[in-house]
């Protein structure tokens, strides 16, 4: 992996994040971290979705399921041994990676649409399991007591913001690396013509399994800190359809074939939603997401990235 401008920018963003959260360099309202966390969480989710959906053309409607499994893994770890966040994140990622692998193994030998339907099913089966599982609180939900402050960040939300920032940088770098590697070219071949790819010697099933595993891992990682962020988790909030809709809409609006698409989509749509939820109403803001999604898939199939490329005259 060669270092280039992207990595310099990523490092600079991470440093800036550290500076803002640890040393309170800028006079930022506490709510900005609270809202920023959600936006960054969507960067991770949208990027994770895009590895399966954008690169390979397999639609995952079950983002909420993976996200919630990540969150509930944290609850279990906390109940078992009061595990710290640094343990929760990799374990949640691993559990969701396994879930993605199993899911892919069951359905990816079939037509792509069955994978999509099965992911939809998965989210609801998992929700039913969690509702009936008293150890993690069942339908009433579970509390986690988090520390009010943590050194050297001060406020705990600032710490979570910083963690999510690192996760987002990690997810986007991973997606970018995959996109440019041999694996990514295999993904693109599957997206364009799976039969032809198979005939040309591309190991399609193995690549699809890699994609669901990586995608699942990232979604689980995004869900792991959620419990600490809200302090209380219940099935209907963790399995909320909003996660599924946003993780599809953001890459579609940003541009699904490149790593920059979900990043742009998540930053834009995520920020707009944070503002709209506060100033207008949360229903209207969801309606806007739905309308934008439909509008973009019909009118601008390549998303914002595609529009910019076209505007520049096809050049990169």
């Amino acid at each position: 992996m060669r270092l280039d401008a992207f990595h310099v920018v990523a490092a600079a963003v991470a440093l800036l994040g550290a500076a803002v959260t640890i040393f309170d360099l800028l006079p930022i309202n506490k709510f900005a971290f609270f809202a920023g966390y959600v936006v960054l969480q969507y960067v991770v989710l949208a990027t994770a979705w895009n590895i399966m959906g954008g690169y390979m053309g397999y639609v995952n409607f079950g983002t909420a399921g993976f996200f919630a499994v990540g969150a509930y893994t944290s609850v279990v770890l906390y109940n078992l041994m009061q595990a710290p966040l640094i343990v929760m994140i990799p374990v949640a990622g691993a559990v969701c990676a396994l879930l993605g692998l199993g899911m892919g193994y069951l359905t990816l030998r079939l037509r792509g649409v069955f994978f999509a339907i099965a992911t939809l099913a998965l989210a609801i089966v998992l929700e039913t399991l969690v509702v009936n599982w008293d150890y993690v609180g069942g339908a009433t939900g579970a509390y986690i007591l988090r520390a009010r402050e943590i050194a050297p960040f001060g406020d705990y939300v600032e710490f979570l913001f910083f963690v999510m920032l690192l996760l987002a940088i990690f997810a986007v770098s991973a997606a970018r690396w995959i996109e440019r590697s041999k694996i990514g070219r295999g993904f693109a071949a599957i997206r364009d013509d799976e039969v032809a790819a198979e005939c040309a010697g591309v190991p399609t099933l193995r690549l699809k399994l890699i994609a669901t595993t990586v995608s699942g891992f990232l979604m689980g990682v995004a869900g792991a800190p959620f419990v600490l962020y809200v302090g209380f988790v219940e099935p209907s909030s963790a399995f909320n359809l909003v996660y599924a809709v946003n993780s599809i809409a953001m890459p579609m609006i940003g541009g699904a074939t490149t790593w920059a698409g979900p990043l742009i989509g998540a930053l834009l749509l995520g920020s707009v939603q944070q503002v709209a939820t506060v100033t207008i109403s949360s229903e209207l803001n969801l309606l806007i997401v739905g309308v934008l999604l439909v509008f973009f898939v019909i009118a601008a199939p390549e998303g914002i990235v595609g529009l910019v490329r076209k505007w520049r005259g096809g050049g990169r």
Partner: protein
Amino acid sequence: MFSVDLLLNALVAGTLLGGFYAAVSLGLSVSFGQLNIVNIAHPAFVILGSYVAYMGNSRWGLDPILLGLAFTPVFFFIGVGVYRVYYESFERKDDEALRGLAFFFGVMFIIEVGLIMVYGVDFRSVQAPYIGQNWKLGGVGVPTRMFVPFCVSILMFAAVYLYLSRTFNGRAIMAVAQDRLALQLMAADPVRIKQLGFGIGIGTTALAGALLIIIIPIEPSIGRLYIGQVFAIAVLAGLGSIPGTLVAALVLGIAESVVSTFFGPSWAPAVAFGILLLALAFRPQGLFGR
């Protein structure tokens, strides 16, 4: 906990529920099974149908089933419109896999949120003389709010089945996904035929929605649960098999009813999806698949 009485009750209730599921999934069997259009917004249209019935019933006291019938043509034309957009934007460009799915997902979401904005998240129900009575046959209870929808959905099912299997256009709908060229040679335009088929698929949701709100009170987001049922039935039936749809619907209805009787209603939602996942994993061609 186990008793023969309980089991009999569960079987009867399950059969009635299954008949209703047949009405809900019939449209999807046509659009997904026969036209190959993955309309995941189908249950959202069913809910839309329910709210139409609710509105007419609560405002003017009209019968929900008649309302459902009256709105079938309206829904038919909505379906035709949706198919036009789908065809022009995705199918013609051979781009239905990713964007087409995202499109229907967006449509589903718009319907759901739109209904929430208009009606809120309260549960709504309808009034009719046949709701709330209970016949006793031996130890088995037959609630009329289940029995009437059961009869109506079997009638609707039979009507659509006869149309599809006896008329030229109906047979063309069954043929279009299999062999477009042969259809063109028979002087039928595949796009018009698919438009007709999709219109019928959405048309059935007006009545199915009216039946739904007779059976249980509804709120906008309940439609998502039915995605599992309708797709489980469509897959289990073997895509496109109309008689298979009826059998699969009855199987699912009985399975759900038995599970919720003996294990508790909170497990019921997992039955459909469990069956769907099992069917996809072990028998993707379905019970009656080719």
